[in-house]
């Protein structure tokens, strides 16, 4: 890889993706900054498609090789939310998993963002049908009830009548 991305971020005005990268060309190994303008992008645009377009853009793709599509999409989401008038805080929270948050309260898009975050671990731990060691009916015995320990989630038992 001629360019290795180190950090990335956004610039709201004009909407752009900012990339800090290391160049391996000619042994310079110097940190550089590249500002990639986000064109034809509005508050109604599809962030996933826009991210894909950028990722494969003939002039930028070499620089973006080590930036995942998911991350590029999130950067576009930050830009689009800003165009829609959302605060940066709101956007970052929507892209973060908070185990205390009640996800029943979210609308479709907000929920999809949370699920996309969950998908990272899901995909990492996933056993697929075409994996060589795939077992359809995978059974694992765990300790029986008596041998198990109490769970802290049951502690306030008396308060909520659980």
């Amino acid at each position: 890889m001629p360019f290795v991305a180190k950090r990335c971020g956004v610039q709201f005005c004009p909407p752009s993706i900012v990339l800090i990268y290391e160049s391996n060309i000619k042994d310079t190994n110097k940190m550089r900054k590249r500002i990639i303008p986000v064109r034809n992008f509005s508050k109604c645009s599809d962030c996933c498609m826009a991210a894909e377009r950028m990722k494969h853009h003939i002039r930028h793709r070499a620089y973006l090789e080590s930036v995942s599509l998911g991350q590029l999409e999130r950067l576009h989401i930050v830009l689009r939310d800003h165009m829609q008038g959302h605060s940066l805080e709101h956007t970052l929270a929507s892209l973060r998993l908070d185990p205390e948050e009640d996800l029943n309260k979210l609308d479709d898009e907000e929920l999809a963002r949370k699920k996309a975050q969950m998908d990272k671990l899901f995909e990492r731990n996933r056993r697929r049908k075409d994996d060589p060691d795939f077992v359809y009916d995978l059974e694992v015995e765990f300790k029986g009830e008596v041998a198990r320990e109490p769970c802290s989630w049951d502690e306030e038992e008396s308060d909520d009548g659980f």
Partner: protein
Amino acid sequence: MASDANGIPELDQDKYDADEQVKIICLGDSAVGKSKLMERFLIDGYRPQQLSTYALTLYKYNTTIDRKAVLVDFWDTAGQERFQSMHPSYYHKAHACIMVFDVQRKITYKNLTSWYTELREYRPEIPCVVVANKIDADMKVTQRNFNFAKKQGLPLYFVSAADGTNVVKMFKETIKMAMSYKQNSSDFMDEVMRELENFELEQNKDLSLQTAQEGLKPESPESV
């Protein structure tokens, strides 16, 4: 009336009275993994039927039990859980329930109480299993007791839709429970009682509205 609870014109729920038809419903908060569990179980090709007007997804599964062909309909919500309550037609004629929580999110475990209360309002007797999903994220949870299941006398399964642990086992055992409930239950009596109760209610309403015949018509689908 039966047609009231049926509620979904596209679906004839009377078919669930037939011997070889079973209805199993999934309950639980948003994002606990209900749909991923279905997909893992039906991994060899599934064609879910989307009823988006009703925020509902149906999965069909063919199997044989005691050398008899059985058709299982799994009902999964597609967003209706957002209201922390399901339309009565969701529970109507269900033979078993799979109640899921996410072992990484306490709130989804706490909310089992309200899901279970609602389930029992509509289906006081059907078998129900509690499913602790996403154990791949934290295997330590399998050493913990989750009192809710024990208190309610329900079987508890530790599963992972991601790596597949105990998913097929849980579904197969639930199907068996659903079948044996169907064969042995006094379901029919439940239905009759319910019809009688409804009848009284409807009559009262009808009198006040003075539209006695209207009461016999199915509810409009918009109310789902």
